[in-house]
């Protein structure tokens, strides 16, 4: 159980960020992380470290999120809330050297709404690549798809995000 605390201390933030970004609901995200910890505990004896512990933990979280999103299709989507950050339980750290002409908070909120509109497979790659800084190779392993698929999903997702934020560009 001490090892579980260590995993949580190291990767709990990344696991929660992935779950919150995927599910857009903090309560559900916490439930997923809790379930993931139990799975990590159960599967730990069979873990041979061929994949990094972080990637492995995130893979478990991603699978649990996909299950939840699949179930949500039948249960109806979440109610609309004005603040996408608040609903997802995400925090925005202001960027120091940002172009003053653009309100970064407004743009970040618009970006969250745009991420909401992405299909889960594209949302997943955007979050893993740009929010959790995983390499294409790690993502391919984590999602069990070829790197080419990852790149094309990312390109499609960024095109959608760009389209959503077009009016905000200067």
């Amino acid at each position, binding site marked *: 159980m001490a090892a579980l605390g260590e995993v949580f201390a190291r990767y709990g933030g990344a696991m929660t960020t992935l779950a919150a970004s995927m599910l857009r609901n903090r309560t559900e995200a916490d439930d997923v*992380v809790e379930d993931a910890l139990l799975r990590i505990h159960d599967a730990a004896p069979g873990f041979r470290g061929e994949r990094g512990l972080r990637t492995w933990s995130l893979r478990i979280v991603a699978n649990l999120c996909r299950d939840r999103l699949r179930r949500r299709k039948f249960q109806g989507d979440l109610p609309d809330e004005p603040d996408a950050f608040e609903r997802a339980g*995400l*925090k925005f750290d202001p960027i120091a050297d940002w172009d003053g002409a653009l309100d970064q908070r407004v743009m970040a909120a618009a970006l969250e709404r745009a991420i909401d509109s992405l299909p889960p497979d594209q949302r997943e790659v955007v979050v893993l690549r740009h929010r959790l800084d995983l390499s294409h190779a790690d993502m391919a392993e984590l999602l069990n798809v070829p790197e080419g698929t990852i790149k094309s999903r990312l390109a499609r997702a960024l095109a959608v995000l760009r389209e959503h*934020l077009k009016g905000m560009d200067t």
Partner: protein
Amino acid sequence: MNGDDRFDERITRLLAASHASANPAVLERARARLAERESASGFLAFLGRPVALATAAGLLVVSIAASLAIVSSERAATAVTTATATQASGGSLVAALLDDDGTYGLPAELASSSVNAPSDAGSTGSAGQSSDSNGVTP
């Protein structure tokens, strides 16, 4: 760097600036669930061990023996009650018959009429007939 690249860079920087922090309560809840599961699985593990099988077999033998003992004691009690009742009713019948004065427990007149009537009538009839026959007969 063209406009699209600059825009993409902004998007990626904004994406990287948003994150969720881990909730310590999640770890506590997970630990509590693990502890609960382990206590439940401890009992299951005990059930899988030979000592559990021996305990179960012992309990089975004890319960069978107890139920047999209960059944046999019930049978014995029933047999004694039946024998006593039979003995008592048989004894009283014999005593009653021995003490009987010929009335069979009925009032004396009734007993004598019921006992004598058919024989008297028969004897009278037969006597009459016989006297008639005696009278007719030369």
